């Protein structure tokens, strides 16, 4: 009885978590949010669906091309819309809010014009299928959850490398990291590319469940931000937990309460959580005691 609620929550939660993680990846070294992130996810889904549908390339090749293109756009976003603002004296304030939002609108408008409003089907990677199996779970759903956990695990390993720790060092003390020869601009650029990879994967993985459509970006961006905030900015494991938590709450609300309240309930839950734990589920408080 409750199994399907759980399955639904795990499926949607994995995607939310992945979007949240891609938000996190950028926040760490730059203290900025890329408001175009949702539309990068959307573009990932649509591009992959279009390559598969029009060019009939093998699934994994199409996914690979998509990842390269999306991370390229993320790189360009940093180059054009973020780096020039952050390099202004005083860090440029919050100009990146407007500039990344503009990139997002640009992407959405362009996709709307070129591809149109119709959703497309994005098949799951072979040999997986979205057909429900014996337990009411499809092979794709199982692989999706495992894949998301694997992606986050890979990121965690990266953040243990010297480069990864240098990125965390920038987040903690920008001046000190400069004095150790760490180049924040270069690592920010790397982080944008990395978050583009995660966003593209999020889109490609969301496609078989949510379809590839222009509308995908906005809703996933909100859920992704919720997951990032609730999980604790900086903690990818926390974001996964929060993603599942939000999706589970959505599913239970839809079942038990009036479905119209789904968004409000998860939003209020995240707010309450942040009131009690401002650092999020697994975020660390700053140990800045001198």
């Amino acid at each position, binding site marked *: 009885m409750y199994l399907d609620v759980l399955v639904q929550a795990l499926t949607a939660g994995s995607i939310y978590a992945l979007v949240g993680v891609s938000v996190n990846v950028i926040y760490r070294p730059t203290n900025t949010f890329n408001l175009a992130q949702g539309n990068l996810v959307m573009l990932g889904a649509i591009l992959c669906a279009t390559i598969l549908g029009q060019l009939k390339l093998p699934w994994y090749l199409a996914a690979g091309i998509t990842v390269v293109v999306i991370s390229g756009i993320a790189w360009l976003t940093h180059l054009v819309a973020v780096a020039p603002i952050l390099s202004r004296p005083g860090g440029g304030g919050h100009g990146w809010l407007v500039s990344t939002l503009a990139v997002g609108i640009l992407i959405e408008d362009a996709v709307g014009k070129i591809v149109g409003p119709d959703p*497309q089907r994005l098949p799951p990677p072979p040999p997986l299928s979205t057909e429900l199996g014996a337990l009411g779970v499809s092979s794709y759903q199982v692989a999706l959850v495992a894949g998301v956990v694997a992606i986050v695990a890979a990121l965690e390993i990266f953040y243990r490398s010297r480069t990864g720790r240098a990125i965390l060092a920038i987040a903690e003390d920008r001046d000190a990291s400069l004095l150790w020869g760490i180049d924040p601009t270069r690592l920010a650029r790397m982080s944008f590319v990395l978050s583009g990879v995660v966003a593209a994967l999020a889109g490609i993985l969301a496609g078989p469940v949510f*379809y590839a459509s222009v509308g995908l970006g906005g809703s996933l961006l909100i859920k992704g931000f919720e997951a990032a905030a609730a999980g604790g900015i900086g903690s990818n494991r926390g974001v996964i937990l929060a993603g599942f938590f939000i999706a589970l709450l959505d599913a239970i609300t839809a079942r038990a309460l*009036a479905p119209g309240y789904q968004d409000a309930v998860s939003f209020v839950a995240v707010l309450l959580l942040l009131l009690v734990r401002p650092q999020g589920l697994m975020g660390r408080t700053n140990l800045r005691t001198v």
Partner: protein
Amino acid sequence: MNDDHSGISRRRLLRHAAAGSLLLPMPFIARRGLADEVFRVGWIRPTTGRLASSFAPLYAGGLIAIDEINAAGGILGRKVVIQEEDDEASPAKQPAVIKRLKDAGVSYVVGPTGSPQVLSSLAFTTPAQMIQCGIANAADQGDAVKYPYNYMCVWSTEQEGEAAAAYMASQLKIRKIGLLQESTAFGEQAGNATRRKFKELTGQDPASVQVYPATATDLAPYVKNLQAAGCEGVIVWMANTVHIGMAFNAMAQQKWLPPVIGHVNLFNDSLFDLVPLDALKNVYGVYYRNWTYTDKEQVPQRNQELARKLAAVDQAKGINAFIAGCPHYDFLYLLKAAVEQAKSTEVAAVKKALDGVRGYKAVLGTINFSETSHAGIGMEDVTLASVASAKDPRSFGALRERAPGA
């Protein structure tokens, strides 16, 4: 911010340049000189913004009407020219858009699209006495007392809701129906009309009513609730193709395929890419009778011609039936008829002629207006058509096979 402003005005400038009117202030052109030669129609259509790609193609029928009218000598011998204004599909942009049209001396307006947009626009066109026809199906927009200058040439959402209920109750003889509707004004209006009509016809309430949020990411739980409630037929009021795809796939997954009736957007071709054809065999959309055929009855010649022209429009690909249900084609021909009957382009005279329209044969049906009602379409023109018939060779473009017994 300054850059933004200059960007917009540059765009506007380009558009005026494209209209060949770069060097003269608009009011001057409209009142003098050219005004004697052309018939100017305001064309409120989003060309930018997130909804532009969904809304802009819906004006294709109107553009065809203008080409036809101009080829046949125009209105009162004047060439019909559109003055396009981009509203970005935003209700907030309507006041500025209407002001620009008013300043340009335009009295006849096509657009905008969407109920909130039309309502916002009506608040300004009504006091300005501009005759208007937008794409909106809320019933009160046909209320001529409230909106004396708005003419509704399409069915209302209530009529759509009733048609679906009537077919379930009277033709399919189903007593346990389920309702699956989105949590929007459209979902609520259509759902309420369905419930009212179904109660009237059968004395029954739906066995289950499922309302999902517009941001839902999975519809399987709602579909399961419908199945669990023992529903034998389902009426769906969903505006978003993604959700429609999710709902039908959930039914297919559960191997539960009851008859389903829903909105005209079920005819969009993209559904066939999202859902296996087997899951669409028993699915019907509410549609205009004139666009449907049966084994014995053909689609009227005029509709067939328009269907052929629409099928040739690139932007209309995949949504021919949806565009065919838009009012602009009929409205422009009605306007031509009214102006020519009044032998004047003065608003008061044209309004009088429009209010007197009775039994006008339009492509969407027989249109009747009066001084108190501008809801032009009657229930006899609303029917149901088979979604799967899109695969029938007789269904070129906008045409569909009428549902059995409808």
